[in-house]
């Protein structure tokens, strides 16, 4: 028999609800979902919660545990102190149905809006030939279990209902990236589409999505940034060079005198840039980090290593910028 521990679980539906207190037995080796199940089997048979596999494979049991978006079945009780109260709440970005169950239809709608795989016309079934190295990049994204934790954590839609229409979210950015990198996909405009119709530009690479992904998919570095990088050929996206600077500096070689090191002319896209940089045509409105009703920054507090929200320019950028790092191209130049 394990010891009793203190749990708080949000109970209610779209009309309202609150956190309720429970003392529940916890045994060695148990996960949060086990505790929910114990509650169902004892005190609260009608406590609503989704689950299927109990092994982190189906992505059903998404919930927020002490404010952190997680899979209930993959959160071991041993990660909490014995005396710690464990608070379990439903995903905040989606409308609540009852208790821990939310209406995740937003995601299925976005899935539908993302153009499907376009098979190559000249190949019959059985004739597909692809090298392992070439499929691996897409395979990383196909590991996605559709738990929607990344969708839930993304500040663009978390508490911003108004952005939902235009923004597909990280889950569908990796879907677009997956198809873009698919060796045999016959559609060639995946990146443009992501930029034009999926709201890729809203993403300012806060990396919260990567942080919460239970499959450890490197959503930002491997999908979003490459997608953004390549759409800049035609469209300006301010976040790209910041993203490079902030997150991928380790991948740039030392001492190549970059100054504002992520600048386009330095990152290997040389050929394009010589022929005219078309970066600065649409000046983007910088995005203010959103705050919730309580005046606080929502998730960044949990996933960031410092207080306050991330700077949309990247936290290690100080102003003024060194002059050699500034870039400007007159709109006329690439007409």
């Amino acid at each position, binding site marked *: 028999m394990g010891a009793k521990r203190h749990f708080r679980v949000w109970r209610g539906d779209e009309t309202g609800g609150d956190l309720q207190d429970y003392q529940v037995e916890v045994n060695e080796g148990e996960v949060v979902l086990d505790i929910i199940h114990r509650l169902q*089997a004892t005190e609260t048979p009608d406590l609503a919660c989704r689950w299927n596999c109990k*092994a982190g494979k189906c992505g059903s049991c998404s919930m927020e545990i002490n404010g952190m978006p997680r899979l209930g079945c993959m959160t071991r009780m041993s990660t909490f102190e014995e005396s710690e109260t464990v608070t379990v709440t439903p995903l905040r970005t989606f409308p609540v149905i*009852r208790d821990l169950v939310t209406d995740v239809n937003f995601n299925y709608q976005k899935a539908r809006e993302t153009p499907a795989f376009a098979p190559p016309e000249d190949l019959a079934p059985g004739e597909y030939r692809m090298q392992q190295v070439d499929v691996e990049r897409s*395979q990383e994204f*196909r590991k996605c279990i559709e738990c929607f934790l990344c969708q839930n954590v993304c500040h663009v839609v978390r508490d911003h209902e108004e952005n939902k229409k235009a923004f597909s979210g990280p889950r569908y950015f990796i879907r677009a990236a997956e198809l873009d990198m698919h060796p045999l996909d016959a559609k060639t405009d995946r990146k443009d589409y992501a930029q034009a119709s999926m709201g890729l530009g809203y993403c300012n690479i806060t990396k919260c999505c990567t942080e919460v992904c239970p499959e450890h998919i490197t959503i930002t570095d491997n999908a979003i940034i490459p997608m953004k990088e390549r759409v800049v050929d035609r469209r300006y996206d301010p976040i790209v060079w910041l993203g490079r600077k902030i997150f991928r500096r380790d991948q740039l070689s030392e001492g190549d005198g970059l100054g504002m090191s992520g600048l386009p002319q330095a990152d290997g896209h040389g050929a394009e840039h010589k022929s005219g940089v078309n970066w600065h045509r649409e000046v983007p409105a910088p995005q203010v980090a959103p705050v919730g009703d309580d005046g606080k920054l929502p998730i960044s507090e949990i996933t960031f290593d410092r207080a306050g929200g991330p700077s949309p320019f990247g936290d290690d950028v100080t102003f003024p910028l060194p002059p050699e790092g500034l870039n400007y191209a007159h709109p006329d130049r690439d007409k």
Partner: protein
Amino acid sequence: MATRIERHHYDVVVIGAGGAGLRAAIEARLAGKKTAIISKSLFGKAHTVMAEGGAAAAMGNVNSRDNWMVHYRDTMRGGKFLNNFRMAELHAKESPSRIWELETYGALFDRTKDGKISQRNFGGHEYPRLAHVGDRTGLELIRTLQQKIVSLQQEDKREFGDYEARIRVFQETTITELLLDGNKVAGAFGYYRESGEFVLFEAPAIVLATGGVGKSYKVTSNSWEYTGDGHALALRSGATLINMEFLQFHPTGMVWPPSVKGILVTESVRGDGGVLKNSTGKRFMFDYVPDVFRKQYAETEEEADRWYTDPDNNRRPPELLPRDEVARAINSEVKAGRGSPAGGVFLDVSTRMSADVIRKRLPSMYHQFKELADVDITKQAMEVGPTCHYVMGGVEVDPDTAAAAGTVQGLFAAGEVSGGMHGSNRLGGNSLSDLLVFGKRAGEHAASYADALTARPKVSTRDLETAVETALAPLERDGGENPYTLQQELQTVMGDLVGIIRRKGELEDSLVRLAELRDRVAKVSATGGRKYNPGWHLALDLRNMLVVSECTAKAALEREESRGGHTREDFPTMRPDWRRVNLVCSLDGDKVRLEHKPVPRMRAELIQLFDRAELAKYLTDEELAEFDALAEEAK
């Protein structure tokens, strides 16, 4: 009627959104039928998502000697010759095309050096045969089919301006009753889990693809969905179930920590080099190779180890025996006191492969043990033991059309819910390909059945009212028992009395206990309202679990031999005369009736794929004489 019921009209309704259901729906939609897909959980989360190892198809990409005939032989051997031969034949012949087709839907399997789909070894398969994606093949399969359905919806959107014009997914919707017009299927009744509101689908053709029954067992790799709904729906509408005594206990489930007991450790761990050891450190599987398999398996550790790199000149390690054999072996070791601390045995890869290779080849196992048990499988051995995994039995179907046998018309079944294909024991990897092959067939034939009807069957209001009453009963009843308590008791009865090793006395006892439970389940009550109320949902599932468990227990008592997924301590050997018998369950009122039916006889050209010495282990003398006569003729 006071209760509001939402009504929908479809040509084909597919119950179940796993591999079989989705493949059936795609086919029905491609045949131009207005199709609905119904599932208890969210779209893309069905059980198929959990399959790890791969999908078996004799594509011959890794070993060019592989072909459908070899696959067919392996399947029949694995099922101990009780399989419906025609299903095994269709399966072996058609699975390569079904896998290749997935690539045109966007699937990305692991590749061979020359760019083809890579194939891996698995228990019971003579050659590397399982198309796979790391150890998350089921996820790839279901996601691919899900995305194909989305692409069909996008087509409809372009053509009709509506994504759901011809194919619609009703997720988190449970079907509790099939409604008939005479003997013809007329519709399916159920509720939305979310709101608790009722819904009626009127349709002339229904495909059951509801998966298995494992949730009736205490230790299982199956999720809450596996309550045998499809099996029970079929029975209640006049269809028959076969082979219900055969349950597959997967030899390697996690045994520690207690809360994850039963969760699967994929067979690829063994296929890729993992070995089983007891508490004395001995590789005990060498002691458990049964005579029928003696010729195909290595006798020394050295030979077994050489096989991984040189399979053509060595015999395979006994760790790769069919699942039933390995499960029994582990059971015996534990009983003999040579088990691990948590009551299993050790499965070790840490001493066999480098940490990098382990992480690369078994990523989700690495992850699973790390996260759930805090065990690093690159450094430590895993503790494993048998877990209830798969039900071979299911709806008796016509092999070519997947139409359910019995009195009902318009009912089709595919996937785990159907029976016959795997005989008494399923080979790993044969399920995923089974889903595709027979899912497609079921969809196709459901569509043509709907086409051929001259008049649409009608749902009667009486039936509908009864269905509503039955569904509401647990909520309206006070003072009955908690459904969770009853489920636990049922699981205990099945686990203890109708488990891996069965005995006459215990089976008889189980029937008595099940009858008691039946009375208590009839009085179960659920608290709370209709909105997303898992207690109510379980209360409704219980009667399905119960009737299916009864079929299993009855058939297990009847079959006086041991074969595949059915082991009788009191009849420890396989008996050729029993090989000719299928046990068929049907419902008579609310009583389960059991009948003997002959197993269909293999066609001449198929039986001649085997050599006589092998057949001699399975067939009766009479059958062997016929075989000899055939061979004589062929000369």
